[in-house]
């Protein structure tokens, strides 16, 4: 798991060369023989590996333009422009950290993450527990089919549905007008925007989020419940002492992943509604990067903000995972 393994299309000879040398067990096949046996596997892996190299790792390295005064006009194509652009060290970061708009974006992002952690994260767990307690399989199946569905809608569709239902020309406003009230301003109110985006996220992914908890629930040994009931534990005590501990590894895992993602709250959702509620409320880190770089052509500044987000995100997920390990939980990496 070290540097030489990162070569794009292995199989040509060198990569993997360390392994047989490391354990020259008698009877173990030579590298040449293993290559002759395994080259089809390597060839099958190569196209996907190449795509990741070009569209994932190459742009990851490309983050170095955060240290440049990148100017697309000093070359015929981005590569030439990259070579010709001036290196300015941490200049972009200094400009970034002095930019109040950047801190607005950071603050919005973190508030939305915190808000959703409290008002969204627990809901799929509650839904799963509730669904699990529905005795009729048919009712449960029907509810599941319906609530999973919005997960497959695009953000454009989700926002569209909200506009048509709750927007100024939507169903709710229309009913309120007919009843003689002034309709509420829901879709365009910056003060309640955080509630709105959370409601949209809940609408889209509440059911989907419950799947993994439902599976964890079905893995709890029913004998535990029976034994507890025989000992006189009521419904709530069984929930507290059996169900929740049974869900704990999954909850911790998802919490870690959410924390590692604290700086991403979704992208399309905010791009789509930024016009309607204004930058003050709707600018998050991702949209900030987009508007700095691609709309206003401050490439270096945008890249710096993107790199800041990536580095902090990586640090967050590593930290959260370490804490989980300390607490005796599995964490994320024991997965692979």
């Amino acid at each position, binding site marked *: *798991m070290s540097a030489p*393994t*990162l070569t794009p299309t*292995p199989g040509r000879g060198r990569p993997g060369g360390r392994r047989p040398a490391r354990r020259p067990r008698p009877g173990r096949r030579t*590298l040449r023989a293993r290559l002759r046996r395994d080259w*089809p*596997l390597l060839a099958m*892996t190569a196209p996907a*590996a190449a*795509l*990741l190299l*070009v*569209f994932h790792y*190459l742009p*990851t390295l*490309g*983050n170095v*333009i*955060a240290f440049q005064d990148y100017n697309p006009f000093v070359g015929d*194509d*981005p590569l030439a422009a*990259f070579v010709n652009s001036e290196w300015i060290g941490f200049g972009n970061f200094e400009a970034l950290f002095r930019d109040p708009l950047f801190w607005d974006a950071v603050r919005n992002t973190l508030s939305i993450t915190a808000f959703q952690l409290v008002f969204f994260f627990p809901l799929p767990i509650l839904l799963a527990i509730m669904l699990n*307690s529905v005795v009729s*399989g048919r009712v449960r199946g*029907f*509810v599941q089919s*319906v609530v*999973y569905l919005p997960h497959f*809608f*695009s953000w*454009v*569709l989700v926002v569209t*549905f909200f506009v*048509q*239902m709750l927007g100024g020309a*939507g169903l709710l406003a229309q009913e309120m007008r007919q009843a003689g009230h002034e309709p509420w301003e829901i879709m365009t109110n910056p003060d309640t925007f955080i509630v709105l985006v959370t409601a949209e996220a809940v*609408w889209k992914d*509440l059911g989907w989020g419950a*799947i993994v908890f439902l*599976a964890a629930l079905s*893995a709890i040994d*029913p004998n535990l*419940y*029976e034994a507890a009931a*025989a000992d006189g534990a009521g419904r709530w005590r069984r929930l507290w002492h059996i169900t929740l501990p049974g869900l704990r590894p999954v909850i911790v895992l998802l919490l870690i992943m959410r924390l590692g993602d604290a700086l991403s709250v979704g*992208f*399309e959702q905010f*791009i*789509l*509604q930024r*016009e309607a509620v204004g930058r003050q409320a709707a600018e998050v880190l991702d949209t900030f*990067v987009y508007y700095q*770089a691609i709309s206003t052509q401050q*490439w270096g500044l945008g*890249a710096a903000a*993107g*790199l800041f987000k*990536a580095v902090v995100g990586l640090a967050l997920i590593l930290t959260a995972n370490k804490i989980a390990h300390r607490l005796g939980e599995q964490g994320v990496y024991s*997965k*692979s």
Partner: protein
Amino acid sequence: MTAQLSGAGPVPAAPATAGAPPPRPRRRSGRAVWEGPPSVSGTVAKAVVLTLLVAAVLVPLWAVLVTSLASRGTIDEAGGMVMVPQEIDPSAYITIFSGGDVTRAVWISTLVTVLGTTVSLVLTVLAAYGLSRPGSVAHRGLLFYFLLTFLIFPGLVPSYLVVTGLGLKDSIWALILPSAISVFNLVVIRAFFMNVPAELLDSARIDGAGELRILTRIVLPLSRAVIAVVGLFYAVGYWNAYFNAVLYIDSNDKFPLQRVLQSYILAGQSPNVSGAAVSLPGVTAYPPTLAVKMAVVVVTVVPAVIIYPFVQRHFTKGVITGAVKG
């Protein structure tokens, strides 16, 4: 072919098999004796919450569908969205499918979805198979190479520069290639492949079958369920992609459906359909704008709703395999 998914927790409807201590299958079929009678208030609360959840999903869908089929009179009378169907007026659909932006966008989105899903599935399945044999040359290194993508991300700006630098700007390949490989999907498929009994593969190999043949003749037929789910994930991703088109597609005639929907409804452009009024007998000329907009919404929703029931029963398995074995 559900048998090989042993690691995904007990399958709910497991029949009582002989041998192993029977895990009391009655939990699934009804209320166990020890649970006691359900409390009335609890049952009512549960019913109310679940009904509200279902309504929250179905009511918007219903309103959009009914409005898209409503005539001008009905829409004017309701003052906007229509909840109670009065008549069925297909003129909005005739309008959007008689040429113009929406018709073209439907074709573009269909093309991107079909082409993209094919490319993604083929490459993902090949790589998942290539990575499914521990002990093969460079196996650990390659696996690390793929999994590392979960931890480090390219930024938006460099990605944009790479795609434009490759000359993909304003090409539908810009909507496909950058997102073609989902390592999460790859891991899910790989977990399935690794559960195929090794004896099966060995015997095929002894009979002289090559790797590609083993993959297509033995492994794939055993993995239909997971392929279906992952195929759905990919297809939904391509159909729903919006922001890629904002970034990379400049010319109107290559806009996918989501982009067009956004410009009509959220940006408030009035639909630029073929420009010609519908002149079929008995059909309103110039269908109401709202109906046309809602028809575009319906067209955008429909593919997901159609495919969904076929793969739904495999979801849990797909999601759990990813979560447990990922």
